[in-house]
């Protein structure tokens, strides 16, 4: 076979790493570089980003030769519900307070699986919240408001 083909996974990997390397290099140039004797804040990062960019290019070049397995399925539903869960907790833990924030965080995460039934999800989140409040708030005395300013009357 003469036609050029790429291993998509590796091509993507190499491309991304190169881009990240270049990004860090560009950021490093904004910092004082200094000399090898007295290195500035940008010296070591610049060297590292150079290495990273180089390795990214190597992977990119290799992707035309070595072939691996395909990437397989991607957990779209998982990403849609799992990743927002900690973000939601971060956004609401001060406003809503520990108890409601944790309950909804667990509830959001529950829906990442298509096998979870809504009633089960609520029950699980409730149980989890009660347990966590007992352990973290009362047991370990972590200093969080159980109910925040948004839900107080």
């Amino acid at each position, binding site marked *: 076979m003469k036609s050029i083909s790429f291993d998509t*996974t*590796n091509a993507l*990997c190499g491309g*991304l*790493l190169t881009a*990240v390397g270049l990004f860090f290099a560009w*950021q490093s140039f904004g*910092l*004082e570089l200094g*000399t*090898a*004797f*007295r*290195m*500035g*804040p940008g010296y*070591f*990062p610049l060297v*590292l*980003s150079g*290495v*990273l960019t180089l*390795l990214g290019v*190597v*992977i990119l070049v290799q992707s035309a030769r070595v072939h*691996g397995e395909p*990437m*397989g399925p*991607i*957990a779209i*539903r*998982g*990403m849609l519900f*799992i*990743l927002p*869960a*900690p*973000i939601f*907790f*971060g*956004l609401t*833990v*001060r406003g809503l307070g520990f108890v409601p924030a*944790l309950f909804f*965080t*667990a509830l959001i*995460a*529950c829906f*990442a*699986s298509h*096998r*979870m039934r809504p009633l089960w*999800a609520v029950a*699980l989140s409730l149980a*989890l*919240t009660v347990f*966590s409040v007992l352990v*973290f708030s009362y047991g*370990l005395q*972590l200093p969080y408001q159980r109910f925040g300013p948004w839900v107080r009357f």
Partner: protein
Amino acid sequence: MDLVSNLALGFATAASPANLLFCLIGVLLGTLIGVLPGIGATATIAMLLPITFQLEPVSSLIMLAGIYYGAQYGGSTTAILINMPGESSSAVTAIDGYQMARNGRAGAALAIAALGSFFAGTVATFLVAIFAPPLTAIALEFGAAEYFSLMIVGLVSSVALAHGSIVKALAMVALGLLLGLVGTDIYTGTPRFTLGIREYADGLNFVGLAVGVFGIAEILRNLESEKTREVLMARVTDLMPSRDDFKRMLAPILRGTVIGSALGILPGGGAILAAFASYTVEKRISDRPQDFGRGAVAGVAGPESANNAGAQTSFIPLLTLGIPANPVMALMIGAMIIQGIVPGPNVAAEQPRLFWGIIASMWIGNLMLVVLNLPLIGLWVKLLKVPYFILFPIIMAFSSVGVYSVNANVYDLYAVAFFGLVGYLLLKLRCEPAPLLLGFVLGPLLEENLRRAMILSRGDPTTFFTRPISATLLAIAAVVLVVVFLPAVKAKREEVFVEED
């Protein structure tokens, strides 16, 4: 005898009621997560780190160490019973252990694994006690150049032991180092790579990164294809191995312990390598190599002893040099720093209770595991049936609370989500996250020592080659790197890691 009095101090510390309790909690939690699928020791320790804030430093490190070796035990249980290694280091155990279980000898296989591990753990604990003090003495002589070279050895070894492409593993190290540099530059106070976000001035939160890259990425991978796990379980009867078994497990256990202890000291994940090395050795010198893969006693006893010995001796570089040998050890460093202890050779001198307490607790923890696990097998087996979709909301909730409680910084939670995505992407792109985490931890230390060494040598880079210890270390790193790129070794290495998958 110094050793005796030191060990006595250690046992006195570790045997206090509170520390015994935390050791017990640690090993039970460890076994639990070793048995449960989809959550490893690294993610658990990362989640629990913040909670250990509230404890005494000794207690918290004892508990975290307990989780680590408890997980090894739990992992071998699932490897034997359902052919699914809970931890990567027990992958080898699954080969012959599961076959023994299918032949109706599950009980014997579990007992052999437990006894082998216990023996190896005992020996390795003593090795740590014997070798840690002299190594500490050497480490005290280390200057900036030596530390730099030593970290290079650690990073290179982690590359050598990573799965898949070596170039990718090297890239992961570089990326990890760069991420480790995010935050304020220690010499000039300049913020670096913070994208103008003030909350990242202290650097990216280590716990957040670890939870994201190891915990969340793993959850996402498990959610790709949800299947009901087949729990085809032989009933566990007859825990006692026969006299014939005892005869056949003795030599493999001894050899496994030696192999494991030696390889565990290597930075980069010695326990996994040790198990493979032991299996290969046993298969080669056995007079009945055809039995391997069909339930050979030696195929369980050797690797199980080796991985436990390796897990134990990987504490040596941590306790003497403050250099982590694997991601779990990196988390232990995080735990020490949170507690205000500077990891390194001074720990043994300044905190003898802590140092020897941890060492003694390892032996106590191993004893607990043998005593508890065999009778509790029935309970662990039941836990195997917990469906995954119940587990991950629990993991998400606990990790959110855990990460938030480190600094009460909500940006750490955003970092968790971001690194969860990054970790998943890396998994999909077949990149190994372990070198990244190691790089992340070592990044600031590496830069600090590089800059200090350069200032001390007035800008002369040959300082790394003219100082004998530093030059030796760099030579080791170069040899390791050359060896992994040799075609023969490369082929063998790929073969080994394919078997593991």
